[in-house]
């Protein structure tokens, strides 16, 4: 039995400390999804913590038939969809300004050492990506994140969202086309690579 399974068993028995350890292992991935989906730091925190609370409440239903993260991701997707339905007015009304303080790129201590130019360039690139994500529908955004960030297959995403793989494929293609249009598909690839490698990478 893996250490993760052991933690799950302890959490199922009511050990909140074990559950917090589990949460620590995946908190960044869940938070990142929530952040790009909701496009606001406060909403991302609320949404991601709602995922953890629901996961804790439903922990007894986990049967070890899949990995803990696969099970957690299903809860995450359902939570996102329910959240969107409950707050649909906010999603429509939110501006696509990615440069506001709620949705800025990380500006930690490391970035100060990297030079102002690369930081500004990174900001611009990140802002463009965020603007593209802000310009698509929540479902298209979620599909793109699940495909691009989570590496799920078209079939897996279609199954989770209750649509056809063709719809998923079309949605991903549209989002990528918008990204290419925004970032400038005719630019030299080296520009992107240098930009991505310049500083904000982990």
């Amino acid at each position, binding site marked *: 039995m893996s250490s993760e399974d052991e933690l799950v068993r302890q959490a*199922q*028995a009511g050990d909140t400390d074990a559950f917090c350890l589990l949460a620590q292992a995946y908190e960044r991935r869940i938070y990142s999804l929530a952040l790009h989906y909701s496009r606001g730091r406060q909403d991302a925190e609320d949404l991601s913590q709602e995922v953890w609370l629901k996961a804790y409440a439903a922990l007894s239903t986990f049967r070890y038939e899949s990995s803990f993260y696969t099970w957690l991701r299903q809860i995450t997707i359902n939570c996102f969809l329910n959240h969107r339905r409950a707050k649909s007015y906010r999603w429509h009304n939110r501006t696509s300004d990615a440069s506001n303080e709620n949705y*800025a790129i990380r500006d930690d201590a490391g970035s100060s050492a990297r030079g102002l130019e690369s930081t500004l360039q990174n900001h611009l690139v990140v802002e463009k990506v965020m603007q593209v994500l802000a310009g698509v529908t929540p479902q298209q955004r979620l599909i793109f994140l699940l495909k691009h960030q989570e590496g799920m297959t078209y079939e897996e995403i279609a199954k989770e969202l209750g649509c056809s793989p063709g719809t998923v494929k079309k949605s991903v293609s549209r989002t990528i086309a918008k990204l290419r249009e925004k970032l400038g598909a005719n630019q030299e690839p080296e520009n992107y690579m240098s930009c991505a490698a310049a500083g904000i990478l982990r």
Partner: protein
Amino acid sequence: MHNCKLTRSSFIDLALGEIEPARATQLQTELNDCPACHEEYESLRSTLHVSNQALRSAVPGEEFWPGYRIRLQSKLVAGPVRQSENAGERPSSALSAPVSLGSQLWSALRTLATTSVRVPVPAALALLLVFGVFFFVLRAREQVQAPPSAPVELVRTVEVPVIQEKVLTRVVYVEKKERRSASGANQSERKEIPAAPNSVAVTGSDPSGALSLVGFKPTNEVKLTIIKGSSRMKNDDK
């Protein structure tokens, strides 16, 4: 034979790993042979790479997570007690905190209000159709069963002008002596002047000389009350 348009249509699937290995190998060969397609594919990959890095860079730094964990832990403690299926569940110090019935009820209501159920579109349309037909049938039945509309009784106060009848009463006192002399004098005049249709006709056939109203035709409806006798007459009779 290489077809640039056909090859490029598979680029996204190739970059995202959604293509079978055999087809992927074939595409790679075509890319190596066609510099334009190769450049296009590299451009796509770069876009995906940059966007991936941009998404990752937006995640907050290390200083964010301790506070996040504390807030999550406090929510876990404050949240409703998990309904464990295990009878012998080990009581946790965090979960053993008493949760009031009100907060449980509120949480249940909130869950009920925010929970949604996925319904396929055809099923939803069919349900809507059934409800619509049921509604119209119900309305039509109500209209058929409804009794004919009875006249509405409306009570309203209306002022109607009432013509007040005015009764004029004229008291005529006629003295007997004067009447007799007047009757004698008038007899000759009556012979000369024909009686006016509206005048009082005093017939001479009356030996007592009493006033008679035979032939009297008033032009207006005037009610006359004639009182015979007077205080003098009474004295005379004595």
